[in-house]
């Protein structure tokens, strides 16, 4: 859907060639002067080398998805050129390393050879190849070179030589593309009047945790969650604050439980394999009623799966990471901004109901850099658990509902017990106790039914309801369909479990709820069906996000198949056909 008023630029090459930083820099420069942008990155699972590509989508208005067709491809080697050129739109431009010979059959793209490295060397700063690219791009997207030069001046403030070399690189790149037609004209940016951040999903989670008042972080390195650990090790310091690198995810979750028991606000972040290892500990958190926040930055699975690709396939695990009779609260942000607010909400929920809360993000969000409105911290409410302040002899678990939590060191000693227990926390096997305690634990979920949700055009019989990171492409597809006159409604929430009850009521009234999601099983659709909602998934499992056009086509295809069958009034459990459907 790349048009004249927006631009999608992809950088492809080897890890270590500056591919990742190029897209981020492009987006950072553009957002710095008032455009909107987001990046998408996919890495090889190795330290150096390996095929890597990133892209930036830039527009005058807020962007929600990475962009379907590329306007400009910057290919640093032949492999990158061959791999990505088919994604370049008709009339798009490909900037090529001189070592790459463009295919003569490639007539619908304009291929330009740019000696990135050679021009960089002329500046005396061989690492300035990215700036050569930026200089060239400034021509192609009609952005004044000064935007880039000002960025360089700020970024390298105080380092005159570096600034000079990079300015020269920008000039050389621009000069090399002198006379080339621009592929788009973004127009003058409308700089938003509000304060903004340029931030990635993982960073939004980390800063959200900071705002929520995190005291204790423990985590084990795993892609793509590691940046949260690194952030916490650096920044979670000061009186009463602790960040520890664990020896395993089992140590992470159980260490977290010790800290939560001791009265601290706690969080760990991991990805699928580590999340599974935490299962038993998360069950203990539910059983002993200890607040903890567990972040699962989803990646392709199972096992090591696709550690550097995106997928939404841990929903079932998040709802039931443990064995036994339990249902986890799950919050799944779908944008970088929601990563911040969703994390604060996860802490608030954990503190409020005294138990574990799962925060599901995903690779594409974690590594997405984007401009977002700066949160007004004074308006972001932070909650803390009810603390017991009475005398000794307290029966912490005796009531049939939430009760204040004693803190070790103060009166009110009890046993936090993973075995079924009585009011004090001592082990018991009495049937009546298990009934009472099971109902007590589930009753606390009621305290979390305050989540908000988005809804539009609610009178339509068919709804589109994405979750997590598929929100962006689904929303773009919804807008396009609506513009075409297709009558569908829009539903969305980050509060997956418990889902806002009014939202569930409204979805129950629909003939069909279509759920775009990145997994084979159609996990969210299955979850919705368990609540009686007539939901079907539109799935994709490539390790990449949805493309807006493809998604829109598949939604239309499904709608027309419903129409042919005289409405979508088939009952649950009937055999459903169509490639979009996974029953």
């Amino acid at each position, binding site marked *: 859907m790349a048009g004249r008023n927006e631009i999608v630029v992809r950088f492809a090459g080897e890890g270590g060639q500056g591919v990742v930083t190029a897209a981020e820099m492009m987006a950072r420069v553009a957002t*710095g002067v008032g455009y909107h942008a987001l990046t998408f990155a996919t890495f090889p699972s190795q330290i150096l080398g390996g095929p890597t590509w990133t892209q930036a989508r830039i527009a005058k208005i807020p962007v929600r998805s990475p962009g379907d067709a590329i306007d400009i491809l910057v290919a640093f080697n032949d492999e990158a050129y061959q791999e990505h050129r088919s994604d370049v739109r008709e009339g798009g431009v490909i900037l090529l390393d001189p070592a790459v010979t463009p295919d003569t059959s490639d007539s619908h793209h304009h291929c330009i050879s740019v000696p990135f490295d050679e021009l960089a060397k002329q500046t005396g700063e061989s690492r300035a190849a990215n700036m050569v690219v930026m200089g060239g791009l400034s021509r192609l997207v009609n952005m004044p070179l000064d935007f880039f030069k000002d960025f360089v001046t700020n970024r390298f403030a105080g380092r005159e030589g570096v600034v000079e070399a990079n300015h020269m690189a920008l000039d050389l790149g621009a000069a090399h593309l002198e006379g080339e037609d621009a592929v788009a004209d973004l127009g003058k940016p409308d700089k938003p009047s509000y*304060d*903004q*951040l*340029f931030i990635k999903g993982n*960073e939004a989670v980390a*800063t959200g945790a*900071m705002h929520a008042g995190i*005291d*204790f972080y*423990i985590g084990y390195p795993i892609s793509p969650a590691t940046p949260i650990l690194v952030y916490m090790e650096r920044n979670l*310091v*000061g*009186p009463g*604050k*602790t960040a*520890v690198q*664990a*020896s*395993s995810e*089992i*140590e992470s979750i*159980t*260490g*977290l*439980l*010790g*800290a*939560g*028991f*001791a*009265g*601290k606000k706690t969080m760990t972040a991991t990805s699928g394999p580590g999340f599974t290892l935490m299962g*038993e*500990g998360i069950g*203990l958190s539910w059983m*002993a009623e200890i607040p903890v926040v567990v972040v699962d930055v989803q990646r392709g699975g199972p096992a090591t799966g696709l550690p550097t690709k995106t997928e939404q396939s841990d929903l079932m695990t998040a709802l039931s990471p443990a064995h036994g009779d339990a249902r986890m609260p799950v919050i799944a942000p779908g944008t970088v901004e929601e990563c911040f607010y969703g994390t604060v909400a996860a802490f608030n929920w954990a503190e409020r109901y005294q138990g574990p809360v799962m925060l599901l993000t995903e690779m594409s969000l974690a590594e997405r850099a984007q*401009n977002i409105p700066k949160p007004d*911290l004074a308006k972001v409410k932070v909650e803390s658990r009810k603390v017991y302040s009475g005398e*000794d002899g307290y029966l912490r678990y005796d009531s049939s509902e939430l009760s204040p939590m*004693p803190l*070790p*060191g*103060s*009166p009110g*000693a009890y*046993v*936090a*017990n*993973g*075995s079924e227990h*009585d009011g*004090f*926390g*001592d*082990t*018991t*096997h*009495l049937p009546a*106790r298990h009934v009472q305690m099971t109902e007590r634990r589930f009753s606390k979920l009621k305290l979390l039914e305050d989540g908000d949700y988005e809804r539009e055009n609610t009178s339509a019989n068919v709804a589109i309801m994405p979750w997590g990171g598929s929100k962006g492409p689904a929303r773009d597809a919804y807008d396009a369909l609506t513009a075409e006159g297709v009558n569908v409604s829009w539903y969305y929430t980050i509060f997956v479990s418990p889902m806002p009850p009014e939202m569930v009521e409204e979805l129950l009234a629909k003939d069909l709820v279509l759920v775009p999601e990145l997994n084979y099983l159609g996990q969210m659709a299955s979850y919705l069906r368990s609540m009686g909602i007539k939901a079907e998934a539109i799935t994709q499992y490539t390790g990449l996000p949805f493309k807006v056009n493809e998604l829109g086509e598949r939604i239309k295809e499904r709608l027309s198949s419903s129409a042919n069958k005289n409405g979508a009034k088939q009952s649950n459990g009937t055999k459903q056909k169509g490639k979009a459907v996974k029953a």
Partner: protein
Amino acid sequence: MSDKNAEYDFSWCPGCGDFGVLRALELSMQERIIRTELPMVNNVVVAGIGCSGNTVHLLNGEQPYGFHGIHGRSLPIALGVKMSSPELNVVVVAGDGDFLSIGMEHIAPQAARNLNICAVVMDNGVYGLTKGQSSPTTQLETVTSSTPYGKLEKPVNPLDLYLTLGVTYIASGFSSKPKDLAALITQGMDHRGFSIVHVASPCTTYNDTYEILKGSAKKGIEGTAWAIPDSHDAGDADAARAVIHEGGMPLGVIYKDTSRPSFDQQFDGIRKRATQKSTAELLSAFDL
């Protein structure tokens, strides 16, 4: 049966060594209350799963905080408690299966950190609660329900393991001598770092080693338990290793290293060096 709660329906078998360990732990915590003038709720007892784990429910009198977690994970739970509230006295109670089999992976990291807690390991050389399977300390060729043709795996030497991993206080005790054991536990609690009190605590049902440990004058059997002489220099790792390899069951303080700072002390150092920023400041690092 716990005298505080009739609903709790667990009990150890008659003669179980764990009764002696329970008594020693009670003595040690009560002595600590008097000496430090800190209340009982300043103590947290973290237990794993198995016969040993029930210690937390069987403590008599004034109650400490307890955490009866999941199998093998008492050490990392204690890590979370201690690093959150360094002023608390954190004691781990675990069995040989809990501590040395499923929980083995957690010993090395706490030793590396010199986590300031005291672990009391009740070693009966068998999985009792699941009815008599072999454990890491079950002797070679022993017939158990899970080793019907005799145990094939070489038993671990726990004391040697602790010394190798760098545990900074290592003591060995016997459940039949609760007063001596209490003194070892008290020293372990007072030690600023990771302390382990490894206790021979026989299982009268599946692995009754009382006679082997104590000996029998009547039968002419010499006991394998022996008191470490006062002349032993616990600060000397080589001397400690010699004691461990002397054979039998040495009783007393084997090793003590007071030169290393504990993990919470090191964090105090970080907190002095690093600057804490407000959320507003942290967010501003991403300002456009």
